[in-house]
Structure formats: C-alpha cells, structure tokens
C-alpha cells in the first residue's frame, strides 16, 4: 500500500471532502494563503479558493462561534485551532454553543462542525501552548472527541468527522504530522473509519496497554521492548475516539490479559485515563489481577526545557516500569 505522512493524510481528507460536499469549508488562522502554520492545509487554498479555505483573524471565539452559527444553517465548517491550546479563548462557544445548542433546542438544531488542530506537548512551546484537552472536551455530553495516532486513522477518521452531524473535536499532533504510514489510495474508493471503534494495534496476552493519540506509539515502543527484553507480550489498544468510546474493545482486552496499563498524555487528575480506569474497575472488577495503572504526563504545567519536557510526557521507560510492577 502507498505510504504518506499523517499531514498528507489529513490534507487528502480535506481535499476530498471539499470536493464531495459544497457545504464543507476550512477556516482558521493562516490556513489559506500561508498553507497552515504546520502546512496541514498546504495547497488547498490555491486549489479551492477563498470561499472554501478561509483565513481568519486571531479571534478564536469569534470565528469558531461564527462557524457554529453557520453550521446551524447546514454548512460544515472545519475549523483549525492553530494549537488546540487556544480553545481556552473559545471555550464558551465550543462547550455551550457547539456542545449544547442541540439539547437546549430540544433537538431542533444540530451542529455538524469539526474543530481540529494539534493537541500535544513535546515541542518545547511551554505551558500555554501544550494543552491536551481531550478530557475536558469529553466531559461535555454533546461533543465528540477523536485522537488519531496514525496517518491511516487520521484520514479515515477525519472524513467521518466531517460527515458526522454532531460537533467533533479532532485532535492531531505536531509530532505525528511528519510520520509516514500506509493509507489506502483514493483510487481504491472512499476510505473512512467510523468513530467509536478502537483498533488493536498489537496483539499480546500478558498485559493490555490502552492509549490514544501519540501515546499509542509510546505504548507500541514499550511493548516491543517488553517483548524483546522480558518476554512479556502486550495488547496495544488504540482508542482512536474518546467519545464515542469503544467500551467493548476495552473490556475484551482486559478480559484477555487481566492486567492494564493506560498511557495518556493528559495530566493525571481527571485525565481520560482516570475515566478508563474507573470504567475498567467497575465493569471488569473480577477480571483484574492487579490494579489498573496509569502513565500520564507529570503533573505540572508543561515545562519548556527540551530535555526535561521529554521526561514530562509518557515515556516507554515509564510504561515498562509500570508493566513490570504489576506482572
């Protein structure tokens, strides 16, 4: 199969959806003429023009709220937050308007909007630019949350997100943009991946590693080392979407291995892995041979210092230690 980058995969998804549906348009800061701060939208403005690819002033509350309003009329805005971190200045529009206007209108309205951009640490841009708000998004019923780890998933999930009739918070990762992966050729037909279906990215028997986003790669790295150095074989389950959540797949791997380590770039307090741990202990209490363990970012604002930031994020080393502690 052909190989493209995560960035190109997203770009393809936009390109295809823009062509498929005249209601789809991209909007964000520097997404058009500048080709995107991270070049994810490269070439799309040149190809599709001002109407379909729109540069916005630095007014996240304004342009995201505007997109929500436009979506109520049936448009399908795909909004870029240059960094997901900047949701903090647009939070009211996201939580209350995108997330709740359907409910408050008794179902008269729906908001088929996608909000997307990178949500990750690891690039030494400091605390204000390194939020990973998937837990905060997913705590709001009404929002959906997707965190792809590979090029293939990025494309397939993005196309589904754009077609979804509910607001989807789509979290990419600047550290993944350049990574290559196999992605089906558009010539072979329309390629989508449903939300709410986890992907078992590695099969094992001893321990389940459950993760989302780039943490999946950390989990895979740890799994290889555990296999090579300790003979421990791990399932690596990639949640892919946080809400909807593939609970069945989670319970299945837990039933198989009875031991779980969650890998999660969120800060620990009320991170996504707190929810998954709570869920597992509730629904698979008797399956568990050891407490569910979590490897999260170290519980402080994101540090700038490059070598130390590496340590702050989940590392394969920390995952391995956790696994060894419960085996």
């Amino acid at each position, binding site marked *: 199969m052909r190989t493209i980058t995560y960035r190109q995969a997203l770009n393809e998804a936009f390109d295809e959806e823009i062509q498929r549906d005249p209601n789809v348009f991209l909007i964000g800061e520097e997404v058009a003429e500048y080709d995107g701060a991270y070049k994810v939208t490269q070439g799309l403005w040149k190809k599709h023009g001002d109407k379909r690819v729109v540069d916005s002033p630095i007014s996240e509350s304004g342009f995201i*709220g505007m997109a929500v309003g436009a979506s109520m009329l049936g448009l399908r805005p795909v909004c870029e937050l240059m960094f997901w971190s900047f949701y903090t200045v647009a939070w009211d529009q996201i939580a209350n308007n995108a997330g709740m206007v359907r409910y408050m209108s*008794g179902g008269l309205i729906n908001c088929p909007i996608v909000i997307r951009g990178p949500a990750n640490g690891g690039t030494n841009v400091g605390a204000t630019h390194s939020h990973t708000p998937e837990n905060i998004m997913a705590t709001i019923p009404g929002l959906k949350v997707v965190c792809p780890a590979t090029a293939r998933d990025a494309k397939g999930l993005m196309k589904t997100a754009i077609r979804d009739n509910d607001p989807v918070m789509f979290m990419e990762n600047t550290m993944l943009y350049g990574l290559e992966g196999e992605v089906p050729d558009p010539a072979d037909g329309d390629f989508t991946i449903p939300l709410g279906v986890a992907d078992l990215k590695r099969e094992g028997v001893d321990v389940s590693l459950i993760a989302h986003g780039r943490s999946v790669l950390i989990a895979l790295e740890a799994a290889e080392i555990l296999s090579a150095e300790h003979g421990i074989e791990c399932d690596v389950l990639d949640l892919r979407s946080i809400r909807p959540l593939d609970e069945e797949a989670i319970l299945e791997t837990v039933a198989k291995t009875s031991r779980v380590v969650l890998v999660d770039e969120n800060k620990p307090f009320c991170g996504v892995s707190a929810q998954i741990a709570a869920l597992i202990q509730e629904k698979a209490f008797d399956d568990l041979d050891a407490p569910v363990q979590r490897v999260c970012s170290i519980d402080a604002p994101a540090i700038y210092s490059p070598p130390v930031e590496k340590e702050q994020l989940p590392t394969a080393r920390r995952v391995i230690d956790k696994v060894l502690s419960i085996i």
Partner: protein
Amino acid sequence: MPVLAESTTDFSKTEINAALTAEQKRHLLRDMIRIREFETGAFEQYQKKKMGGFLHLYIGQEAVAVGSVSLMGDNDHVITAYRDHGHALAVGMGMDECMAELFGKRTGCSKGKGGSMHFFAPDKNYWGGHGIVGGQTPLGLGLAFGLKYKGLKGCSMCFLGDGAVNQGAYHESLNLAGLWDLPVIYVIENNGYSMGTSQKRSSAFNTCLAERAAGYGIIWDVVRNGSDLYEVREVVGRAVERAHAESRPTVLEIATYRYEGHSVADAKHNKQTLQEGYRTKDEIEHYRKNFDPIGNFSEKLIQEGVTTEDEIKEIRKAAVAETRASVTFADQSAFPTAEDLLTDVYSEVDHNTLAGRTGRHFFND
C-alpha cells in the same frame, strides 16, 4: 448615551411605514399586545410556581422586536439573548409551545429542555434564546456568513443588551463582520440597565454604545425612541436594506426600557416591592406613562383612523384568551421523562444511524 426621548420626526410618513396597510398596522399592534399579555400571564404562572429558574420579561420593549421582525423576509434570520419571548412571538411562534416550554413540558418549543432563556424555532428562522451574555453574537455572525456562503440575499438580526456589548465575543464578531462584509445587524437593545447596573456604570463610550462600530469601519445608527414602532422600522429597515443590497453589517442602538425587574426573581427591584434598589418608582412610572410602545402605537393608529379603542380592547381580549388557553395547554401537557434526558444530545444517536449506534456515547452506569 441615548435615553428614550420623543422623536422629533414623524416616522409614520417614511416610505417604509407609509407602505404599511391598515391591516398590517393592526397586526403589528396585535403582535405587541400578544407579547405583553403572554408575559403578563407567564409572570402570574411563575408566581404560582408553575415554572422554575429565570423569567426575563420583555415588557416595555415590545416595539423593538415587533418592529424589527416585521421587516424580515424569507432569508432573514433572528437570534437573541435570554430575554427572548418577545422575539419568539414576533417571528410567529405559538403561545402554546412557548408557555409549555416555560412550564418545562414536552410540548414546549424546546421540549422543556431549554426553558425561558432558550426558545427556538429554526423553521421560523429563529435561532434562540441564549443564556450566556454576548454568546449569541458570533452565532448571529455565522448566520450571516451562511447566507453569504450560500449566495442568498438575506440578513441576520442579532439582538443584544447594553451590558452584553462588553463581552469579548461581541468585539471579535464586529471585527469579522466589518472585515468580511457580512450581512449582520447587531441591535443593541439599550434598556439602560444590565441587571442592577446602570449603563453608565458598565460601559465606557463616547456618545453611545453603537458608536464603537465606527472603530471597525462599520456603519451605526441610533433609535432614540425605541417605543415608537415606526422609528424602529425606519432605522432597522435601512440596515436591512444595506445588508441585502451591499452585504454590509450595521450596528444599531435602540433606546428602550424594561418595566419589570431584570428577571422576576429580581423581586426586590420590581414594581410590586420596590423600596430601594437601582432605580426609582418614579423613573419606571415615567417610562410606563410616556414611552409605552403599545400605548404609543395605539394612539397613533387611532389618530390615523386605522383602529379604534374598542377594536384594541378586542385585540387585548383575544390575546388574554390566547394566553389563558396556552396556560391550559401547558398545564395539561406532560413533563418529559427521565428517559428524555438522553435524547437531543447527539443527532446521530437520535436518528439511530450507524454512527449513532457505534461506540458508547453516554456514560451512565
């Protein structure tokens, strides 16, 4: 700052108003009276504890909603804040679904899920009803953006209060509206107060709040007598025309006044019990007497020979009856059930699509 004051111009003679038929004029009067009676009825029901939460009454401001909405064509849209009953009835929502919403019933316009602050009727181009001060202003912009994107000749009328102009989202919206020439009309209903704070204690301004628009290169205008439906129509009409013909935004400020407390929970400050508080009985009486939109328009129509005292009494009676019927309707309607809690959260789930059936959406046990 624009304070309600007698118009020196006779706006009944302007083109937009001269074009109204007698029937249309009576209809406008009727619309204002229906709003007044609906809210008076709602207030009574509130005191009987038939509803919970807030009830922000629009009484005193009726000419703004009715005058503005009367200019709406097929592709014109309306959105407002939590003081939303007047606009709702003006766009043609029925009293039944509105009263039922206040009662928290399933037959309510939002199925009892939204309450007083969250009336909606997309089929009537009415997009709510929003509780977060200023939060509706980017949405209103989005309606305008959508119209322009679709190539439709229309506008979005986005109402907000004199307190709401100090929210960041409004400022961001103004910049985008000005920059992209979006056909949005921001109508600041300046009733002199945000809750208990008089306008001069909440806003720094030069001559008025609308004037801030100049800083974004946006045209602005003022209605000095917001209780004169003709003046409202004239000024809003020009903005609608600008939106339709040039796809350009306008900011309007309309001087108006609310007779009741900020919400009816704001009892200390409402007419029945006012002793101290942020405004005097005399002030309220002054506006009631001299700037009542219904009184104002009634007088005009009688003078014009378009209607009579008696006919107005009949209109009022009908509105009272309609209100009563809506109370009965609301009373007899069922409450939502606990199961209803989980519908209307996700469209895909509601429609039982494949997407709605895939993965877990809700995290109750």
